[in-house]
C-alpha cells in the first residue's frame, strides 16, 4: 500500500479503495523512429472494469500488447500485485494470470471449440490428450458464461458465427483462473444479442473479482460496463479516472483533442509531459 501513495491520484480515485492489481508507470515504447507510447501511467484495479479509449493510432493496441507480454517497454515499470515484474512473453503474462483476447481472436479454424480453448495447455492422461476431461471443462466454462447457441463444442471453429467465435475466445481467456483479462474490441463484430451477452459476461468477470480492461470504440458499451475510464491520445494517457467523472462528450473530446474544457480528471503527470 505504500507504493500506492506514489501514484498521482492515490487510492481514493477508485471510489471504494480497490487496490490496483496492475500498475503501469512511465511506460515508453517506440518502434524505430516512431514513438508509440509516452510515459503512460495506468492502474487496473481488481474487481473493476476499465475502459481504454482512444482514436485509431492512439496506442491502445501497443499498450495492450505491452501488458500481454508481446512488446517490452523501452522505459517504465510494471507492478503486478505490488511487485515489479517484467513480462517478456505471453507465457509470462499467463503465469501471472493475465489473459488477452485480441480482436482477431487467434482461433484455429480447423480445430474444434474444445481444442481451441485448451490450445497450448492441453490436459494429458498417461501422456495422451485427455479429450473427455477437456471437453467437460470447456463445456462447464461455456455454460457458466451462458454460451448456449453453439450446437456442439466439438464443431470446428470454422463453422461458428462471429459472435460465437468471440464467446469462445472470451471463454478461453477466463477458463484459467486469470486475474486480469484484456479484451480488444470485444463487441466490434457482434449483433445486438451477442453484444448484450458479452457485456453481461464482462460484468460477471468483474463480480468474480477479476480486473478487466476493455478496449473499445463503442462508447455505449464502455459506459455500460466500465467503472473506470482511461483515454489515450497520440501515445499519451490524457485522462484516467472513475467513469462517473466522465460523460460521453468529455471522452470524445479527450479522444480527439487530447484535452477537455476544465475537466478535473486529467492526471497531472500526463499533462505536464505534454508540451
Amino acid at each position: 500500500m505504500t507504493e500506492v501513495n506514489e501514484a498521482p491520484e492515490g487510492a481514493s480515485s477508485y471510489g471504494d479503495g480497490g487496490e490496483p492489481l496492475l500498475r503501469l508507470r512511465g511506460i515508453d515504447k517506440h518502434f524505430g523512429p516512431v514513438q508509440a507510447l509516452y510515459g503512460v501511467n495506468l492502474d487496473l484495479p481488481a474487481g473493476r472494469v476499465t475502459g481504454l479509449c482512444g482514436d485509431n493510432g492512439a496506442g491502445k493496441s501497443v499498450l495492450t500488447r505491452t501488458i500481454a507480454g508481446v512488446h517490452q517497454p523501452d522505459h517504465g515499470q510494471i507492478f503486478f500485485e505490488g511487485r515489479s515484474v517484467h513480462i517478456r512473453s505471453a507465457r509470462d503474462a499467463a503465469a501471472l494470470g493475465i489473459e488477452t483476447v485480441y480482436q482477431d481472436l487467434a482461433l484455429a479454424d480447423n480445430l474444434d471449440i474444445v481444442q481451441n480453448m485448451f490450445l497450448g495447455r492441453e490436459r494429458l492422461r498417461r501422456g495422451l490428450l485427455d479429450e473427455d476431461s477437456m471437453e467437460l471443462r470447456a463445456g462447464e466454462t461455456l455454460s457458466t458464461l451462458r454460451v448456449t447457441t453453439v450446437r456442439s463444442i466439438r464443431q470446428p471453429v470454422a463453422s461458428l458465427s462471429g459472435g460465437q467465435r468471440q464467446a469462445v475466445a472470451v471463454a478461453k481467456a477466463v477458463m484459467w483462473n486469470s486475474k486480469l483479462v484484456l479484451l480488444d474490441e470485444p463487441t466490434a463484430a457482434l449483433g445486438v444479442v451477442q453484444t448484450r451477452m458479452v457485456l453481461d459476461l464482462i460484468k460477471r468477470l468483474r463480480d468474480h473479482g477479476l480486473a478487466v480492461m476493455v478496449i473499445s470504440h463503442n462508447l455505449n458499451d464502455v459506459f455500460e460496463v466500465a467503472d473506470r475510464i482511461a483515454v489515450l491520445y497520440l501515445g499519451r494517457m490524457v485522462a484516467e479516472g472513475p467513469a462517473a467523472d466522465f460523460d460521453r462528450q468529455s471522452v470524445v473530446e479527450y479522444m480527439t483533442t487530447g484535452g477537455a474544457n476544465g475537466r478535473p480528471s486529467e492526471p497531472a503527470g500526463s499533462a505536464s509531459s505534454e508540451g
Partner: protein
Amino acid sequence: MSPDRETPVTADPGETPTGTADARMAADVPPELLAQSLGPYLRAWWLRVRGGDSGVLPVVLAMVVVAVTFQIITPQHAFLRPSNLVFIFGLSTVYMVLAVAETVVLLLGEIDLSVGAVALIGGVIAFKLVQQPGPGWPWWAAILAALVSCGLIGALQGTLTARLRIPSFVVTLAGFLLWSGVLIVALGGADGFVNLDSTKFDQRVIYDLVQGAIVPVAGWVLLAVVVGAAGTALWLRAAGRRRHGLVAPPMSVTAIRIALVALVGAAVVAICNVNRGTSLKQVDGVPWVIPIVLVVLGAWTLALQRTRFGRYIYAIGGNPEAARRAGVSLAAIRTWAFALCSATAALGGILLGAFFYGEYSTNTADAGQLVLYSVAAAVIGGVSLFGGRGKPIHGVLGGFLIGGIAYGVSLLNLGTLSTPLQYILPGGVLLAAVLIDVLSRRGTGSVTHV
C-alpha cells in the same frame, strides 16, 4: 451478422431447412454430433459430404472406378487376380508410407519434395549396413541407423525452413537434388547397385519385410486380433464418452464401423491366402508389409490425434499466429515434423528395396517419381495442400490408389506409351484431387491463409 445463424438449430438435420447457410454449417459438423440414431446420422453425413468435407469418399469412389476400368481394359481381365492384387499391396505400401510421411508436413502447410530422395538414402543405408561381408550389422540396427540418419537429414531441412523461414519447397527441392546425387555416390556410380543375400539371416529379415508372408492361418488369427483390438478401442471410447455424459456416435454406427473394418480385413486376408505361386511352388499368406503399414498408420494416427505434438501440427497448419500466441514453439514443432517425416520416409525406402526383391539400383530408384507419387497420394487421399486438414489414413488410401493406377498401366500392352502414362495418369488424378480440395474450401469459405 444475420441473427438466424445465432439461434440454436434443432439437433435433427433432417428437420433443418435446406438453406445454404444451414448446409454450410452442417457441412463442418461431424455427423455423430447431430444424430443419435442411424437414419439421421447418414443424412447428416451426406449433408457434410455435399458441403465439401467429403473425407475418404472421393478416394474410395476413385478406387472403385480404377478397379473396374482396369479390370475391363487389361488383357484377359487380369487386374483383379489375387496375385496382381497382392503385388499392388506390396507396391502401394511404399507409396502409403511415403504419403503418410508427406501428410505430416502437408498438415503444417509446408511441403517436403525430398521424401523420395531421402527414402532412397535410408534404404541404401540399411541395405549397406547389413551386408556380409561388410559392416554386417544386425537387421534392426541397420533399420534404426537408416531411420536416425534420415531423421537428421529431415531435422536439417526442417531447421532451415523453421528457423530461417526459407520456403520449404525451396529447401526440400535443393535437398531432393542434393540427396539424389549423394545416392548415386552411395550406390557406387550411375549403374551401381546393392542387393540383399537372402540366405543370410539379417539380410533375409529385411528382404522378407515385403517378400515374406505370414502363414495363412496366422493371417486369420492376426486379423481377429486387429479387429478385436480396434473394435474394443472404438467401443470403449464411445462408452467412455457416454459415461461422462458426452455426445457419442450411435451404437449402430460404431457397430457398422467395426463390421466394415472386419470386412475389408477379411477380404485382404482371403485374397492374400490364395495361392499366387505356380503349381510347383505354392506362395500364399499375408505379406509382412501389411501389418507393418498398419503399425505405421496406427502410430502416426495416435501421434497426430492424441498427443500435444500432433495437436500443435494441426494448430500451426490452421492458424500459426494462434499457435504462437498459445505458447507453441513453432520452430521446434516444424523441425520435429520434418525430422519425423524423413525418418518415416526412410522406412518407405527400405520397403521399396525389399519390394524390388532386395535389389537397389539407380534404375529401380526414381526419387522424382517417388515424390510425385507420395504428394499425389496424400492429396488424392484427402489431405489439404493448404495445411491443417487431413489424416494418415488419407495418405494410406491415396497410396493404394496410386499403386493400383501405376501397376494397372504396366499391365496394359501399350509398349512405348506405358511409361508416359505412369506419369500422366497420376498427374491427372492429382490435379483433380487438388481441384476438389480448392473448390471444397471455397465452398465452405474456410480458407485460413493463402
